[in-house]
């Protein structure tokens, strides 16, 4: 036996340290943030504040609703808790807040991109009991109602509008290229033909922008890849379910022809140099540049992008462009070969949800009701260039005429798709971006990229994959 060396002098100090660790370590893990919910008369509302100080659309709107709410409910208070962060950091912050009853707000603004993930984590409360007694819910269109519906069939969030996507094109460039001002492609080939014509006749502009690769993030997946994928033969055939996810077997689809077709389109755009230079396309700031620079300066022929672009060109935004609607035309994205239903759009958007650990859920739902009266909803859609998900607002001429383009993008709602935003989706989306990036740079062929995607998909979804 080895004799133990006694350390009579050090042991008390060590004891002190150990004791301090034992006492304080758990404290360090939980003692963050301030307690909320102690006041049953205050509803705490967390939302995303723009990182651009000039953009205060949501803040202004919520301050207005707060005033209405406090007036209609004497003795009740609303505490607005803005979180100033870019999208991905906002999600992280909110998820950390939702983990503990001490930090969970009563109402939280959730992106449909991640809501299913948060539902699976048990962060949110099902709203079905509230919805049963809320007349206005009938005014929401059916596709929007499913935006925050989980796999368990319950609804966890109230959408406050949505977005759709389509083709923006520069009428000036089209005129120089001899293309019609009321351009409407019927197939993918029509788009490529127009782009080739522009490349030929107006050589100093970028013919066509399709977001691609990891730097563009979800914009590459949603504005780029999925706008193609959801229009392939695979996706539009009779009885076809979602092209990424099979609802019946609850598995992700690998090895589909549609996936390769969509990748081939991306490859063609960049191989034939119809898109931005590859190094520009893979610049993290590409989407800001498209909105702020390329389109307003007339350097981009066709842009596959979202309905919210005019938000950046409104008065007070810092880069006003009042006559954009005279310079730009709009066309819906066609299906691959023009097959029925002829057009494609993707939708996302944000919802208001009540955290599972909220202290005042009843009051929080009351706040949603105030926020979602027809008048308030309409005010909000117009203020943020949003697309209505309420039938009564969509039919209101005041809304439809508030901005050029609103009618075009609202009509796309009938043929739009929501992403299979299940918990694995963010990882699947990254895998799609990687596949796009490798065909964009030419590092991989379409079939190699598709194979890599299948591998990544297996890892990302814990092997919940079906091969076609």
């Amino acid at each position: 036996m080895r004799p133990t060396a006694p350390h009579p002098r050090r042991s008390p100090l060590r004891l002190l340290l150990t004791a301090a660790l034992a006492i304080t370590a758990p404290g360090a893990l939980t003692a963050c943030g301030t307690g909320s919910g102690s006041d049953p008369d205050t509803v705490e509302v967390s939302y995303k504040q723009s990182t651009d100080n000039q953009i205060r659309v949501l803040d202004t709107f919520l301050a207005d609703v707060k005033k209405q709410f406090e007036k209609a409910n004497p003795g009740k208070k609303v505490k607005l808790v803005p979180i100033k962060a870019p999208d991905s950091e906002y999600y992280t912050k909110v998820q950390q807040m939702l983990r503990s009853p001490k930090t969970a707000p009563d109402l939280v603004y959730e992106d449909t991109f991640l809501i299913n993930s948060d539902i699976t984590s048990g962060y949110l409360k099902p709203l079905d009991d509230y919805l049963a007694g809320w007349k206005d819910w009938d005014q929401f269109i059916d596709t929007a109602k499913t935006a925050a519906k989980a796999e368990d069939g319950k609804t966890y969030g109230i959408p406050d509008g949505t977005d759709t996507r389509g083709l923006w094109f520069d009428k000036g460039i089209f005129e120089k290229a001899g293309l019609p001002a009321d351009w409407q492609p019927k197939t993918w080939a029509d788009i490529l033909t127009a782009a080739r014509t522009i490349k030929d006749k107006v050589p100093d502009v970028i013919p066509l922008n399709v977001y691609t690769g990891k730097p563009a993030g979800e914009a590459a997946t949603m504005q780029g890849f999925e706008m193609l994928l959801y229009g392939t033969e695979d996706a539009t055939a009779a009885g076809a379910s979602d092209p990424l996810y099979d609802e019946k077997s609850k598995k992700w689809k690998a090895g589909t022809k549609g996936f390769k077709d969509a990748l081939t389109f991306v490859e063609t755009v960049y191989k034939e140099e119809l898109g931005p230079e590859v190094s520009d396309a893979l610049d993290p700031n590409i989407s800001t540049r498209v909105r702020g620079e390329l389109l307003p300066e007339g350097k981009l022929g066709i842009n596959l992008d979202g309905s919210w672009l005019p938000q950046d060109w409104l008065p007070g935004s810092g880069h006003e462009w009042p006559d954009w609607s005279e310079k730009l035309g709009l066309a819906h994205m066609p299906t691959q070969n023009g097959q029925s239903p002829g057009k494609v759009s993707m939708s996302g958007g944000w919802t208001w949800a009540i955290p599972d650990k909220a202290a005042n859920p009843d009051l929080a739902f009351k706040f949603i009701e105030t926020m979602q009266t027809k008048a308030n909803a309409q005010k909000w859609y117009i203020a943020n260039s949003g697309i209505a998900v309420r039938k009564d607002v969509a039919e209101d001429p005041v809304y439809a005429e508030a901005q050029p383009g609103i009618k075009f993008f609202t009509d796309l709602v009938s043929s739009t798709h929501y992403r299979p935003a299940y918990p694995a989706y963010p990882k699947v989306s990254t895998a799609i971006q990687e596949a796009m990036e490798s065909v964009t740079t030419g590092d991989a062929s379409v079939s190699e990229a598709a194979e890599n995607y299948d591998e990544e998909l297996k890892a990302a979804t814990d092997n919940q994959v079906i091969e076609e």
Partner: protein
Amino acid sequence: MKRPTRPASGPSPHPVLRSLTRALPLTPATVLLLLFLAGPIAYCAYIAFTDLQLTGQAEDSFIGFENFRTAFGDEAFLNAVWLTLVFTVISALIGQNTLGLALAALMQRASKPVRTLVGGIVVTAWVLPEVVAGFLLYAFFRREGTLNAVLDWLHLPTQNWLYTLPILAVSFANVWRGTAFSMLVYSAALNEIPKEITEAAEVDGAGGWRRLWHITLPMIRRSIGTNLMLITLQTLSVFGLIWVMTRGGPSGKSQTLPLFMYEEAFQKSMIGYGTAVALLLLVVGSLFSVIYLRLLRTEV
């Protein structure tokens, strides 16, 4: 087993009591350290062995070394380790270190106004927030950036540096930003060298290079070691600069470990895996530290 106890009476108080009294003033500091440093670190070490996710998971569980196994089987991780080493060697060991020493040495001989001016410029780069520096260098390297404007004016070929040579571009950015620190350390060290020694060597006919090799470098050896250790640890954890300039792209060609970690933990929400990578980064850092400490120990 019972330890023999000393008699209570005597010249000195009971050792336990004495230690406690001595430890008492340290207690607040110790508690704070434990609270804000050891606690989170211990928690992180624990998380690295779980499959904890930020979202998308009802319950997490303990999975042992699985995260580490995943990391070593993950090409993207190995790529990040390699790039981290390249980035550290180019920008810290070679760039910041030698440039800092050169600047410090040149400034020893420069006139006071020149010294103030150069020192001011270099230190400005250092005090700029990382993200601001990142944007400045993004503007310098991008296609329509300053560098290409200069090259174009000289009729030299231009290219998008952030796309063609991303790891070199971010390394250069880190040299630009961090050289001031080494310069300050070496300025202080060079000032400590007694003038008589250098003068004596000069009288003996030693040229500039010989004086540098046989006198200056050995005399500032400790400063070199300290400086290398500090700038290495700083460089290993550079995040904002690279994030702003390239986001680790294109195709992961500038994705160092901190960026890889961020992507796994917060974009793919794999907190457990991301934390395991953070621990491995800690290991890389301590390996470097051990090497420097050994270098420091050898006497000349």
